[in-house]
């Protein structure tokens, strides 16, 4: 066992950190009240720096990185509170394309890697608890293709995606693991409407409504009825990426809180002198270290294909929802009134963590999945 970064990985970490520091930290982003959905210049830099190529095979024009490289990138982006659709486009969209066969890869990965293709995955449905197998939206087979009807909620990056991957039922009923298929959809198609909106963390998403959307058979991504396996593998990678981002964000929350406690004075002393707060900050530190351990465990197990890899991913997401959330709440509490303001960074990190915890199943769902795995 070995927990050191390779020289290349260390260089990646340093370069992301430098880039963040040079004008892309959350503080800068936070003050940009225009809240543009996508910063085109920023995305161009992502492409130029090679980050969009990171997880793709060299044969596909990528850099051949894996979960560890994504971890390195995402943790630094999390630390910088960088708002960018990396997970929707590269991790989710790219992950599904990677698993969809050579034709899909050849057709779309070059554009994605060059920063010319934005993607979104339409997964969540209104009034349905998150779980891919709980999908109800129907894709009815018809002459030469499929007809899609239904709604999807909170399609991350859906407002600016050039194409959407839509999970739909070509068979079975909600709860069935079979009968799930993925479709490639562009927003300009008849019957597609997208209502863009912000999310609590300053990212953007869309409500997707499909009314009699006719798709050719070629719009089917991967095997008909066989979407679940590649989707789950892709979701594992997304959970790792978000986990790394969360650990980066949590480390800032801890640092900021400790720093604040050293300077903020009440009752004549820095509040960091109060033993009750010291113990709580010690708990925050331990929570962060345990989450970092789970992040490493899950990332390395997925990277190396261990049999219990998914179990470790569930553990990571569950504990983020329990201990990561608590850490973030403590960061607000220990900042007092200042923690409640839009002005300090702490609230913005808090909101990003809240969003991450809300995505792709909560703590109890992942604990249950962990127990079943």
């Amino acid at each position, binding site marked *: 066992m070995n927990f050191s970064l390779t020289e290349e990985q260390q260089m990646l970490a340093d370069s992301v950190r430098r880039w963040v520091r040079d004008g892309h930290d959350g503080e800068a982003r936070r003050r940009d009240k225009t809240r543009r959905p996508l910063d085109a210049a920023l995305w161009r830099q992502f492409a130029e720096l090679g980050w969009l190529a990171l997880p793709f095979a060299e044969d596909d024009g990528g850099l051949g990185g894996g979960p560890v490289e994504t971890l390195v990138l995402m943790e630094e982006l999390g630390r910088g509170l960088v708002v960018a659709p990396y997970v929707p486009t590269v991790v989710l969209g790219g992950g599904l394309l990677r698993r969809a066969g050579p034709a899909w890869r050849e057709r779309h990965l070059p554009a994605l890697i060059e920063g010319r293709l934005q993607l979104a995955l339409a997964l969540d449905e209104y009034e349905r608890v*998150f779980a891919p197998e709980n999908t*109800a939206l129907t894709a009815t087979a018809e002459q030469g293709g499929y007809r899609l009807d239904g709604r999807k909620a*909170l399609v991350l990056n859906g407002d600016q995606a050039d194409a959407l991957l839509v999970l739909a039922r070509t068979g079975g009923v909600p709860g069935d693991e079979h009968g799930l298929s993925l479709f490639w959809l562009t927003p300009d198609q008849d019957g597609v409407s997208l209502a863009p909106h*912000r999310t609590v963390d300053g990212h953007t998403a869309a409500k997707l409504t499909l009314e009699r959307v006719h798709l050719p058979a070629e719009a089917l991504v991967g095997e008909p009825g066989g979407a679940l396996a590649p989707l789950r593998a892709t979701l594992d990678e997304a959970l790792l990426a978000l986990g790394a981002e969360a650990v980066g964000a949590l480390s800032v929350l801890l640092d900021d809180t400790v720093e604040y406690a050293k300077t903020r004075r*009440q009752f004549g002393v820095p509040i960091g002198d109060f033993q009750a707060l010291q113990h709580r900050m010690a708990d925050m530190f331990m929570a962060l270290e345990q989450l970092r351990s789970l992040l490493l465990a899950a990332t390395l197990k997925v990277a190396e294909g261990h049999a219990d890899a998914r179990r470790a991913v569930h553990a990571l997401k569950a504990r983020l929802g329990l201990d990561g959330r608590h850490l973030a709440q403590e960061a607000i509490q220990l900042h007092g009134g200042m923690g*409640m303001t839009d002005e300090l960074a702490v609230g913005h990190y808090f909101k990003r963590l809240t969003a991450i915890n809300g*995505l792709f199943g909560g703590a109890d769902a992942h604990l*249950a999945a962990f127990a079943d795995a």
Partner: protein
Amino acid sequence: MDLTIPDHEQSFREEVRDFLARAMTPEIREAGRLTTSVFAPVKQAMDWQRILHEQGWAAPHWPREYGGTGWSVGQRTVFAEELVRAGAPPLIPMGLQMCGPCLIGYGTEEQKAHYLPRILSGEDIWCQGYSEPGAGSDLASLKTFAESDGDHYVINGTKIWTTYAHHANRMFLLVRTRRDGKPQAGITFLLLDMATPGITVEPIVGLDEVPEQCQVFFDNVRVPKANRVGEENDGWTVAKYLLTFERGGQDYAPGLGVQLEQLKARARRQATATGSLADDPLWRRQVADCETRVLALSFTEQRIKSALSAGKDPGALSSMTKILGTELQQRVTELAVDTLGAQALLWQPGALVPGGGEAPLGPEYALTTMASYLNARACSIYGGSNEVQRGIIAKAVLGL
């Protein structure tokens, strides 16, 4: 010991219920649904206060001579419960719950005659000038100074976390009038007109992007000494009275109970593969955990009121209900976020403005859920942080 509800309280409950069904306009109801804070949108809250005032019910806890209702503790509880159940927006407390009782207790006859009717009617909107950038939990260390100058004070300094200062036309505040001695000893309680020259109000945007709080700056602000409540340097007495009130004056359990019922209704609409989230044992456990805690708190609040009715002083127990109520409020809003999953992330602050006209891109409650969760992070900080309250229990109750 018994749990008997007197007949007259039962019929009173019917009376209140009928009135609320009649009196709450669609606009008031909408404001109630869209309220994600203990502070409702100011316009609708004041409209609602005027309706209640017409009925004579704006300040049930005030003595009858000043416009109160003369209700028993039990009736006041019934009234508060029914307001919560009907989904009415809460009235803004700074005048009715804070300044009013203070004036009744410590004001001169002139002050009472002038201010109390205007508080009741909603003609005046008050804000509370207590905290300062360097004096939050450690309130006694406040520094805003009022220099004596003939029959005026001249105030310099700043106040922070002044809720609705940008909506208020009056402020009650604590200022320092002496620099030596114990920190508590040199504090004076004043009333001022927000239109007085030298006052600057800067709204503070919160996590929920709402400018609910403000910072207020005082630059040689002249306040007549006639606006002093209580003696010079003896404002701490008035302040402490208010703080106790701020903590213990309200019941948390009724509102929490309503929120949990709403949550169960929402969970029944969240489909799983086999039924709904409301059938999920893990989700049910989380709700039962909250409900059992709310049941305990509800009886604690009853016990405290029972002691109050018997003329006993619950004292530091208000610290306990403040801690338990606010931490449960935080937990319930957290569970509400969990119940909606990713749908809670939808962020449309424009759709939360009553009458704002922006249509929500999902169920209305999906919008209020996150805003309530974010706003509720503050309730363990304000009114004396929960850390300070735990210290009070340790000292005042346990003698540590």
